[in-house]
């Protein structure tokens, strides 16, 4: 059986990868995808702990988080589409009307 710590390290790696991608990528959709990666890193950690402790709650929580991520995606993609309609681009450096 694979030890729990492997899963936790994997989920931490995924999370850090998500953070790095969020700051490095210059595209609104890719930034949004990196947030999804971070959320799923959390999901993986939940499942690993649920398995380790023998608690079913952790797995139920994951379903809630997946639902929330879906709701977020629905609103978020609509907003990105709105930006695309107005500016004909989804590069994040072009979304720069306000500064200071």
């Amino acid at each position, binding site marked *: 059986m694979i030890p729990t710590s492997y899963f936790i390290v994997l989920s931490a790696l995924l999370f850090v990868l998500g953070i790095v991608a969020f700051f490095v990528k210059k595209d609104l959709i890719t930034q949004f995808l990196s947030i999804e990666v971070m959320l799923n890193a959390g999901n993986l950690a939940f499942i690993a702990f649920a398995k380790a402790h023998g608690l079913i709650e952790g797995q139920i929580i994951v379903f809630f988080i997946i639902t929330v991520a879906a709701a977020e995606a629905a609103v978020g993609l609509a907003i990105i589409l709105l930006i695309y309609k107005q500016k004909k681009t989804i590069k994040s450096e072009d979304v720069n009307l306000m500064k*200071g």
Partner: protein
Amino acid sequence: MNSLYALAPLSIIVLASIIILLLEVFLKKENKNYLGYISVFFLTACFIFCFMSWGKDYSYFNGSLLLDNFALFFFMILTIGTLLIILMSLNYISLMDANHGEFFALLLLALSGMFIMISSTDFLVIFLGLEVLSISSYALAGLKKKDEQSSEASVKYFLLGSFASAFLVFGLAFLFGAFKTTDILGIIDGFNKPTELGLLAIFGLGMVIISFAFKIAFVPFHMWTPDVYQGSPTPVTAFFSVGPKAVGFVVLIRILYPYWHSLFDSNVLFTILWIVSALTMIFGNLIALRQTNVKRILAYSSIAHAGYILVGILAMDNASCVFYLTVYLFMNIGAFTAITAMTKKGKEYVELEDYAGAGFNHPWIGAAFAVFLFSLAGFPPLGGFLAKFYVFAAAVKEGLISLVVIGILASLVSVYYYLRIVVFMYMHRSAGKLDIQQENPALLIVLFLCLYGVLQLGIFPGNILVFIRDAVGSLPF
């Protein structure tokens, strides 16, 4: 007491938003204001219910939904806040070509999310409430669909808001791994057994606090605030600056309060929060000095105010934090109401130059705006002064002298940019281009109510303080 009544405030608000969404389809365009009156009716009903159930401690779902006095107090002030925001935006929405039904329904849904966060004792439910609040907020920020600034605010809020939510999920997973539960009381019990404190628990708590620092906009997690506040429709900005901030502090009080004696003694968490508080006060006020957009000035001022409230949390005085949040609600909504008033069809006046001579052309709005700015700056006898005084006095009692000195110096700096707006309104000659179409009665009522709140809390705070002591006393620790 286990009772179905505990669900009532939440169901009233959700029901109201569903009714509004349904009616939106059937009402004619000139009758859309009725949606506002309907939401005012439901909000009043919710307020009355909260007032009646004061002290009854209704709970449901095995206590994971708990209406203690602390929750009820915030239910009431947030209901008042939302009511004021709906009243002030009745005319604004049609001037900005936005959609009445969407606005009111999303605002009420956001309020229901805040209710869930305030009254829950389980972190998973707090997370779900936070998402109900956040997702409605992203849509609210982009409500002016033809305005590029509004969409930009919306996308920025969406990206950084969900970034913060991911931190919350990850931290929560680690807390779950450390303590085998997501219940706040269970987590607190875990923290009070110092032998079990592993890296997992500390890391998880840190992540959770970071995500709430994003929502409250502490420095260095504040970078989204000015852009979002500037781009959003003004009443929505008023809502953002008051609602999520208050709720974030409620959750912080609920999770940090019990750790104070175990974790605060170890000084690590304390030192970090100390530094964050000092940075928030200094940066918020200094960057506000060189802004020329009034909404942006108030955005930086709201960052600074979060720093003052954090001083109260560090001083372990919940009552002064709650009082500060109450006063802040009235004075900030008041100030944003005055900005909302400076509007004509399709255009908002938000630059400092636009306000030249406004004090003489629009005496009522100008005078009220000046009072709110004085209160934000902390002049006696207004509410803002007493709020700062209580927070700083509590901090001095706990021996946080250097933090209080930083706070007082920072609020001295803040006087400059608040008074700059007043100087523009009363001492600069009017350029004659301020033709606003907003002198409607609902807006004047809101200005008057906020003015009353600021003066009442500044001169006779006694009644409210009794309420607040009662509320804070009901915290379960």
